[in-house]
């Protein structure tokens, strides 16, 4: 068991899968000699060669589009899009193509493809790099979406994604890539999709987050504990499939809930979580569910992003309003 960062955990997952199955290949911008702009594929081109670790032309639609053909030919592609915001350049190849081939072909062409991309702000990157647009893919109903928040889940969910017979959008928390280490088993293990993780137990309030927002929830829970409020923190791990049961069980226990995400508020995935909970746990609720999200504006200049992103302060105030309602 080694202590790994999220980057190292992701690298371990890809490398292990490439060693295990020679059909697994990596393609994307700068994934070869450079090892990816975040070094997630560091050392792989030396080990597996250019045909399996391929620096593509700078063109996102053909990264995803050719991955579809590669999969049909018998490969298991792991495509990297440098930042989730740039998946817009490939959007028509994702929802309309990647997510529909099994369906359109009536099962003839399943697509075992993983598309990886980092998401989220807080690192003062230029425009588009930090955009949290995960909810836009939830409306493409045949793509699974994993949103890990820590090294253990990053490795286990990525192995699960690569072995999944269907397309998975694997969204990585950029801000947390190298922030801290955690114990990660050396051998391979799978974290199943659709099972949320209870990060911290508590009876007074449920805080729900995914990706880097889980860290904000954890820090908020620590602050709330200082005021005697015990928050339960839940990390969704995957948006599709969604673990409704764990959410309902927690909210039934606490009666209060705040959902936190980095995407702008309106029609963010938090809206889906809230709508689901009001349907499934309405009578357990003691107060309306609150959402803490980014504002409904374009992503602001980097110098202003901390005022825009959901912060511990905003989550704590929302939690206090909810609990005291």
């Amino acid at each position: 068991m080694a202590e790994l960062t999220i980057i190292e955990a992701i690298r371990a997952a890809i490398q292990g899968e490439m060693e295990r199955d020679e059909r697994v290949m990596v393609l994307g911008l700068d994934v070869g000699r450079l090892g990816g702009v975040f070094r997630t594929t560091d050392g792989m081109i030396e080990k597996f060669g250019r045909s399996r670790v391929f620096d593509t032309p700078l063109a996102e639609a053909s990264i995803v589009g050719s991955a579809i053909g590669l999969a049909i030919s018998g490969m298991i592609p792991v495509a990297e899009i440098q930042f989730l915001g740039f998946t817009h350049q490939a959007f028509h190849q994702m929802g309309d193509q990647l997510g529909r081939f099994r369906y359109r072909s009536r099962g003839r062409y399943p697509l075992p493809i993983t598309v990886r991309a980092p998401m989220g702000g807080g690192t003062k990157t230029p425009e588009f790099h930090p955009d949290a647009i995960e909810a836009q893919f939830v409306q493409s109903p045949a793509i699974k979406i994993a949103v890990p928040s820590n090294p253990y889940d990053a490795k286990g969910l990525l192995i699960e994604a690569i072995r999944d017979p269907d397309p998975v959008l694997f969204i990585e928390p950029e801000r947390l890539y190298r922030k801290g280490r955690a114990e990660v088993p050396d051998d391979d293990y799978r974290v199943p999709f659709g099972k949320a993780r209870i990060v911290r137990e508590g009876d007074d309030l449920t805080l729900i987050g995914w990706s880097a927002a889980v860290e904000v929830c954890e820090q908020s829970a620590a602050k709330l504990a200082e005021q005697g409020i015990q928050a339960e923190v839940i990390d969704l791990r995957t948006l599709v499939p969604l673990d409704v049961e764990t959410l309902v069980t927690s909210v039934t226990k606490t009666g209060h809930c705040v959902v936190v995400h980095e995407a702008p508020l309106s029609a963010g995935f938090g809206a889906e979580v809230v709508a689901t909970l009001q349907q499934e746990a309405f009578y357990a609720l003691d107060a309306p569910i609150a959402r803490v999200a980014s504002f409904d504006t374009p992503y602001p200049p980097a110098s202003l992003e901390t005022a825009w992103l959901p912060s511990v302060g905003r989550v704590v105030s929302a939690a206090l309003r909810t609990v005291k309602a």
Partner: protein
Amino acid sequence: MADQDGVYQVLQPSGKLKAGAKPALDDEFVLEGLRWMLLSRAFDAKATALQRQGKFGVFSPVLGQEAAVVGSALAFDPRIDWLVPQYRELPAYLIWGLPLRNHILTLSGNPVAGRIPDDVKLLPTQVALAAQLPHAVGIAWGLQIQGREGAVLTYFGEGASSEGDFHEACNLAGVVKAPIVFFLQNNQWAISTPRAYQSAAAHFSDRAAGYGFEGRVVDGNDLLAVYEVTREAVERARRGDGPTLIEAVTYRMSFHNTTDNPSRYQPPEELEEARLLDPIERVEAYLRERGLWSVEREKEMKQAAAEEIEAAIAEAQKAPPPQPSQIFDNVFAELTPRQAAQRDEMLGRSGDDG
């Protein structure tokens, strides 16, 4: 459509060989090509009629482009090669081994029964224009990585070549030297938008130079020329010498699809001119000259095509109709709990949304 424009031609519109031209197809093969062309045209007429009666969905005829589709498809080996279609290339799907019955089922709203058989290396038709091109490149590239034999034929039109996917796909194919033939059918119309509005380039095939591979422009109404140029491109792909972009200059002699009304935009004299260049009549004239085509022979072949279509329609009618529960089939290998609950709710079983 003459050599001085750089458009390759073997058969003149009269059906006579161009001076010095030697057909690469033997007579039997030309007859086989004509058989596919006649079947395609007969199916266009039948399918249009059935669409008007509400029995088929929206349908895009091949009419006028039969030589381009049949000539290119016959240059491949469907046992090892892949076909990545747009949607206006029926005879190619049949040449690849798709039963006509399956195509009819798909057109009549029963895609479940119309599924592409496992041994047919054909992708489903693609409604998003040019979106299939990166897929085609990926297949060709994947065959290359795995050291497997086989090349890829992909179809699209001059309109679709304005899409970004065309550029990205050609560019990647050139970089990896993918064994692929990009077959552009320039039928002069993208619904109502004329060819000149799509590109200022003299020929669409000129763009190949920008991607570092071969581009050829061919008379798309000339079965022999199309076959020959495509055959060369297939051989190039098999040798490992990379992609080819072929522009087949042809003409859409019918509507874009059954919802379209070309009389709103198409100059009637242009259509009249195009009819003089009919690709089927050209092959018939060529064969007649060689003593291989007669009124009786034509009657026989058309009769056989009509019977094949009627038999396929009858077969299709025997297929079980689609069921609402099939809405949830083949979404994922396994439905998510939420999808399963929605299916159960639709089917009136117990279960809430969620």
